[in-house]
C-alpha cells in the first residue's frame, strides 16, 4: 500500500523500509535526503523546513500514486520531515520495492525529482556565521488554463 506523510517527527528509516517489504519483490531502493554541512560554498549548521502542510500531504500522495501507476508497484513509502533539523538529520525518505531492480531505481528517482519540482516545502539554511537564508527553489509547474468553472 502506498504510504506518504509530511511530519515534524524524526524519520525512522527501518520503519519506512518495513512498509515496503513484500514477498514478491526482489529489489528495494531507499533514498535519504540528509542535512549536509555545506551549501554553495557556505558552512551550514542547521536547516528549517516549512511546508504548506495540508497541501503538501496531498501533493506527496499524488506524486507517490503517479509513480505507483507508472511502475506497477504499490510498495512505496515516502516521508518528508518539517521543522528544525540538525546536521545529519534525514529530511526525506523514499522507499520503493519492486520485483526487479530497474523499476525501483526509476520510480525512486522520479519521486525525488517530482518532490523537488512541486512539493510545497521550503527550507531556510542556517549558516555557521549566524546568517540564514531561504534556499532558492524551483517554480512549480502551474496549469496554463483554468480547469474550474465559475
Amino acid at each position, binding site marked *: 500500500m502506498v504510504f506518504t506523510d509530511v511530519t515534524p517527527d524524526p524519520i525512522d528509516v527501518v520503519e519506512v523500509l518495513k512498509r515496503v517489504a513484500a514477498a514478491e519483490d526482489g529489489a528495494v531502493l531507499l533514498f535519504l535526503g540528509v542535512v549536509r554541512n555545506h551549501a554553495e560554498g557556505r558552512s551550514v549548521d542547521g536547516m528549517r523546513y516549512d511546508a504548506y502542510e495540508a497541501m503538501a500531504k496531498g501533493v506527496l500522495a499524488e506524486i507517490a500514486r503517479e509513480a505507483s501507476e507508472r511502475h506497477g508497484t504499490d510498495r512505496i513509502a515516502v516521508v518528508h520531515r518539517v521543522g528544525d533539523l540538525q546536521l545529519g538529520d534525514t529530511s526525506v525518505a523514499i522507499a520503493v520495492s519492486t520485483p526487479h531492480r530497474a523499476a525501483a531505481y526509476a520510480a525512486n528517482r522520479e519521486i525525488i525529482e517530482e518532490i523537488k519540482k512541486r512539493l*510545497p516545502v*521550503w527550507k531556510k539554511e542556517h549558516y555557521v556565521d549566524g546568517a540564514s537564508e531561504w534556499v532558492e527553489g524551483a517554480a512549480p509547474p502551474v496549469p496554463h488554463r483554468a480547469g474550474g468553472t465559475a
Partner: protein
Amino acid sequence: MAIAVRTLFFAAYRDLVGAAEIPVDLPEGSTVGDLVASLRERGHPFSSLPPAPAVAVNRTYAGPEERLAGGDEVAFIPPVAGG
C-alpha cells in the same frame, strides 16, 4: 456582489508581506490573476510580489485564469525547495 477569499503566504513571501494569512475581498468573477494584480496595486510590500507567482486554490495548483469563489483558500507558493 463581492467575494471574500483567504490568501496564504509561505516562506519568503510570508517574510515579504509580514503575514501568514490575509483576507481579501474581490468582485465576483475575479480570477487568480485579478487577485494577484489587486494585491500588488496596494503598493509596498505587496508590490514586491512577482506579477505571476505560483498559486494554489484550495490546495491545488491553479493558473492565472482560474475563477475564484467565496471562501476559497488561495496560497502564494514561492519556488519550492523540498527534499
